[in-house]
């Protein structure tokens, strides 16, 4: 199982790294690795030149740094919750096993 988990993790890393190597900055220019939603916005503007969007976001992160802070916060909260649960179950099971060993 440990081997399988290691391979799975390596697979995820490889899938994130390979695109970085495959796509050259010369090909894409400034837009390299921008969001697919930005590309969709551009596509909409090509399909409907002058399209006025219904509404702008109520609040936008004032800079890219703040935005990445909030995305980082989101994943930290998620990873924290997940790791708390895994640690809780693992600890509970081990605690029980130690009790048995002591008896």
């Amino acid at each position, binding site marked *: *199982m*440990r081997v*399988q*988990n290691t391979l*799975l*993790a390596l*697979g*995820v890393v490889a*899938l*994130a790294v*390979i*695109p*970085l190597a495959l*796509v050259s900055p010369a*090909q894409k220019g400034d*837009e*390299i*690795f*921008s*969001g*697919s*939603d*930005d*590309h*969709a*916005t551009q*596509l*909409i503007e090509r*399909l*409907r030149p002058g*399209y006025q*969007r*219904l*509404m*702008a*976001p*109520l*609040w*936008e*992160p004032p800079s890219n740094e703040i*935005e990445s802070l*909030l*995305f*980082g916060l*989101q*994943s930290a*909260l*998620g*990873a*924290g*919750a*997940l*790791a*708390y*649960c*895994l640690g*809780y*179950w*693992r600890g509970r*099971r081990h605690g029980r096993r130690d009790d048995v060993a002591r008896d």
Partner: protein
Amino acid sequence: MHIMEGYLPAAHCIGWGTVSLPFVAWGVKKLSDRLRDDPESRLLLGAAGGFTFVLSAMKLPSVTGSCSHPTGIGFGTVLFGPWIMSVVGFVVLVFQALLLAHGGLTTLGANTFSMAIAGSFTAWAIWRVGRAVGLPLNVTLFLAASVSDLLTYCVTSLQLALAFPDPVGGVAGAAVKFLGVFAITQVPLAISEGLLTVLVMNLLRSHAGEAIAGVLPALKEAGR
């Protein structure tokens, strides 16, 4: 990536909202019943929600030279079913719309439909069919998570195509263009989500056998 704030006509916003609302409402009912009958499942729900939070915050590079993020819906769907995961997906979308200017409030109905509803019901269908026909557990899990991820973005593309038909090719022509933006970018990310789902479920099955009893068989703990 979800449909951006304001980029759907009002009629579409209302339409998708109307379609999504009953799913989320019924999901809230299922969720409160589940937590009342089985308070222990609160922790497992935290794990499923946590997984969705992490995965939908991870913007990953793709072979198309643009970035998108996975959805993290399949994992929790296997544990809690599609109705409850519709609620979890909805909560993530609200969080991202309000705090990250990612997705939006006017497009919340459409995005809820693609990620939280279509995504979770697809994962659920694949999971049930895969188990019924006896596919290996991890293969089924991988397929449920990755196809659900990919399908979410196919639905997003179709939603945009319906709203912005191509002047020449019509809805179908626009669908091809939007699929080119969203779906192709998503292919490697969907594979990543499948791999991560199997990985985290392996950890859960190794360490939390009793918490997932009845849903998935526990694994013998490695190295002990």
